[in-house]
């Protein structure tokens, strides 16, 4: 496991800019950038279309709740990405395809009531409601590296339970070879699903999948929280998947359906651009994305533009010891 010593420029959470100031400065920049930034202007307009032009900052922010969980004692030495960055830099196209859009467009998202239906090739299909998500299983903290397919990475203290414990409860039968996950489809709440322009042109609902042995691996996490509290909507509230050895797009957010299947399911990014995004999507520094190198990554922490944060990318994102066996005998340059 990779151990990082916090660098000198490591800041505490308290030194991270307050959200309100962050927003003010951003909107100032957007307004000043009228000449150089037509595209930014269009996003300002998009953001304000729903909220009215000036009351953007007065919108109530989503309330997260503290969680009880067992601490991750093994990985505390990893240099965590500040919480403010984790919750403001999101690829969640349901709330806009620009990374700063989800935090602005998702605050009104309703997560309670929620229903997560687990079904398909299993003996005891079940439906979890909102309270079940945090109460049915003991929660634990897992500090994981997250490697985005776009070649940036974070370290995030997730809170959740192993997908394996949930799957054991529904008792998969012998035909269950794959697991497919589905994000909520609700264009009224998710502006990206309603507007093609906001939603980045991908097909909804978002669908992801795993092989059953990948799903049963103890690292595979159903996350209900981060940094000690329930998930904010931009990070996939109320429940999301975290598969730390795969590119981030596999870790599907705001899940309403989990289904056990006999055959490999079609998945969103793989269908959209099969040459760029494989079904497996294991982090692999020796297999480049056709349009950029995957050999290294920028680790997002603090320090602004001058942060020397480019680090080598590790096979399976550094989790090879735990998962490399799953792919023994497979040609990973073909099954990327």
């Amino acid at each position: 496991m990779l151990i990082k010593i916090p660098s000198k420029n490591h800041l505490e959470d308290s030194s991270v800019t307050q959200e309100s100031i962050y927003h003010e400065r951003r909107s100032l920049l957007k307004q000043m950038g009228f000449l150089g930034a037509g595209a930014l202007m269009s996003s300002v307009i998009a953001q304000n279309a729903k909220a009215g032009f000036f009351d953007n900052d007065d919108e109530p922010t989503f309330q997260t709740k503290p969680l009880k969980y067992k601490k991750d004692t093994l990985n505390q030495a990893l240099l965590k990405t500040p919480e403010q960055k984790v919750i403001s830099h999101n690829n969640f196209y349901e709330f806009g395809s620009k990374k700063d859009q989800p935090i602005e467009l998702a605050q009104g998202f309703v997560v309670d009531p929620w229903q997560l239906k687990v079904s398909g090739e299993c003996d005891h299909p079940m439906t979890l409601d909102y309270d079940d998500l945090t109460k049915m299983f003991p929660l634990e903290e897992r500090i994981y590296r997250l490697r985005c397919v776009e070649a940036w990475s974070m370290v995030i203290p997730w809170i959740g339970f192993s997908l394996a414990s949930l799957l054991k409860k529904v008792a998969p039968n012998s035909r269950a070879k794959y697991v497919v996950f589905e994000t909520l489809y609700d264009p009224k709440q998710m502006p990206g699903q309603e507007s093609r322009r906001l939603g980045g042109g991908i097909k909804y609902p978002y669908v992801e999948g795993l092989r059953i042995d990948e799903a049963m691996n103890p690292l595979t996490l159903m996350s209900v929280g981060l940094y000690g509290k329930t998930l904010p909507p931009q990070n996939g509230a109320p429940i999301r998947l975290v598969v730390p050895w795969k590119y981030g797009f596999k870790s599907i957010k705001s899940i309403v359906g989990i289904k056990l299947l006999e055959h490999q399911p079609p998945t969103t990014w793989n269908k959209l651009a099969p040459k760029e995004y494989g079904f497996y999507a294991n982090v692999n520094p020796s297999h480049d994305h056709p349009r950029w190198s995957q050999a290294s990554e920028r680790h997002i922490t603090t320090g602004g533009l001058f942060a020397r944060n480019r680090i080598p990318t590790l096979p399976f994102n550094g989790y090879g010891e735990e998962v490399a066996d799953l792919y023994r005998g497979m040609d990973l340059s073909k099954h990327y």
Partner: protein
Amino acid sequence: MKSDTKVFLLKVLIHAGALLPLMNLYFLAFNDEIGADPVETVIHFTGIGALNLLLLTLSVTPIAKIIKQGYLLKTRRVLGLYAYTYALFHLFNFLAFEVQFDGSLFISEVIKRPYITVGMIAFFLLTALAITSINKLKRKMGKSWQSLHNFNYLIVLLATIHFYWSVKSELTSPLFYFVVAIALLLFRYKKIKRLILSVFI
């Protein structure tokens, strides 16, 4: 108002409109106050900015013709130079903050990734236009100056392709830029037709 005064005021506006956002951008980015990933922010901002300025430069002539205000043409050079400045920052951001001066990674990315190759060609062409915008050189070059600066039409197409190719799936904004670029080129339909014919015949 005399047209000289109008040109002067316009230029002041252009300087402010191009420089202030750039200064503000880097001030915030150095202090880590501009989103979680300031690197991505500065790369996108300067890239889009360069494209906006390039298109603005190309729209001066049509606008001046339509509203019959010939003095507007005098703003083309400063706009073009700011387009180049933004492009220069865009490239520098990629080199300094994205690949962080890893020379071999930089070179392999420029060669291996077609969208970066296209962007790089556009940048080199734009560099030639920027250098030859100096009055002395312009006079020396005579007729060939105009032929060289006709490459602007190619540059704007390469830049929109570079943008289109770089995005993951959100195609609306690249397509919008493409349409605007085509519209500006169509305004020069006869000239461009002649240019193309002169190359092939």
